[in-house]
């Protein structure tokens, strides 16, 4: 079937099998390998992207379901060479070690901060509770998100 998905603002049309998962559509069909294919069981969250305005684990949604909708991936976070505060926060606070979970963490954090610009640490931990960091670097990930909340003004959108 033919699907047309607006990915990071650009319409992408492909002929795909209805059983194709969104994560493979993004990585294999469009070459957007920023979103990671991790546990394949909707446990780890490395594959989180936005479907319209809502984060989703892209290993558990079909590309067909995204037909006619928009998808935002980690490749869309930086604008005009300017890192998103969430990305800058991960740099400043050492929010990643191996980096595998990072795209899902950052897309989820961006969604949280858009809804709640000043989340308490407990709220950050709650919203990230469905994402796994295999390096167990959770403390620094939470710090990174807090850094982004505190420096939202410094780094222009």
């Amino acid at each position: 079937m033919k699907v047309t998905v607006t990915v990071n603002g650009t319409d992408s049309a492909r002929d795909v099998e209805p059983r194709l998962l969104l994560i493979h559509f993004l990585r294999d069909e469009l070459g957007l390998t920023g979103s990671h294919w991790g546990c394949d069981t909707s446990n780890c969250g490395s594959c989180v992207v936005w479907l319209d305005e809502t984060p989703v684990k892209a290993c558990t949604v079909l590309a067909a379901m995204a037909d006619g909708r928009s998808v935002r991936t980690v490749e869309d976070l930086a604008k005009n060479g300017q890192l998103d505060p969430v990305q800058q926060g991960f740099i400043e606070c050492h929010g990643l070690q191996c980096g595998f979970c990072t795209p899902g963490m950052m897309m989820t954090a961006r969604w949280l901060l858009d809804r709640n610009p000043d989340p308490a640490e407990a709220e950050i931990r709650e919203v990230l509770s469905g994402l796994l960091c295999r390096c167990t670097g959770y403390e620094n990930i939470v710090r990174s998100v807090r850094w982004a909340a505190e420096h939202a003004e410094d780094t222009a959108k």
Partner: protein
Amino acid sequence: MQVPSHVEYERATSVEHALALLGRPDHRVLAGGHSLIPMMKLRLAQPGVLVDINGLAELAYIRIEQGQLRIGALARHADLLDSATAGQHYPIFHDAERVVADPIVRLWGTVGGSLCQADPSEDLSAVFAAVRATAVIRGRDGDREVPVREFHLGPYETVIGPGELLAEIRVPVHPSTGSAYEKVARRVGDWSVAAAGAVLRLQKQTVKQAGIGLTAVAAEHFVAAEAEDFLRGKPATEENFSKAAKIAAEHCRPIPDQRGPEDYKRHLVGELTTRALRRAAARAAS
């Protein structure tokens, strides 16, 4: 790599359209997909045609109507958790939704999908059994209403037939009612080892009606019927809650598995039922 088997995909544009598409036994409704797609990836489910109902905004609501809490089948777990209306009348929904999967999954998984999945470990089935909800099933010839306590035929099996769609869940709203849900899981976001939901309607300090739902312990229709019978008409005391919980623990049929042995699960049912009844009673009084 987990790949579903070949499947066709149709997108419903209205409830009527969905019903027209849902003709054959191998057609499956695709809502949030967070149970169905993992099962398809494991080839435990191999539907021939998926009918995607995610666009049917007309099925996504939570409101009070005619003295009932009415939940559209396409309401997401996150919607139910965020619904002040639902929480005001039945805090059991908020208790349960806080421990259903994780916040990202809750944005997509639907209330109706949870019921239709009929997973023995799924939380909302026990909750809707406890609150004595009614399922509204829509077919081409109109609606039929089925008590949730008669909705599940067994694991992964419901009364919904080909050409039918769960449209709404209705919950009667009563005054002087309290409710609560208690769950033990191995880790955040996991399925229950065991869980218990309780609803108490009190008149002065007497139990006028009791609802007790049990998760993941093979209670028939997710209900602890013998414990409910015991409580009805009795004073709402700690002693009676303990006795009812003991009855619930004796009558369920937990299966030993990697989440724990049978005696541990029975112990949990007893303890969690007591706690749920205690909190339900406190909420009914406040």
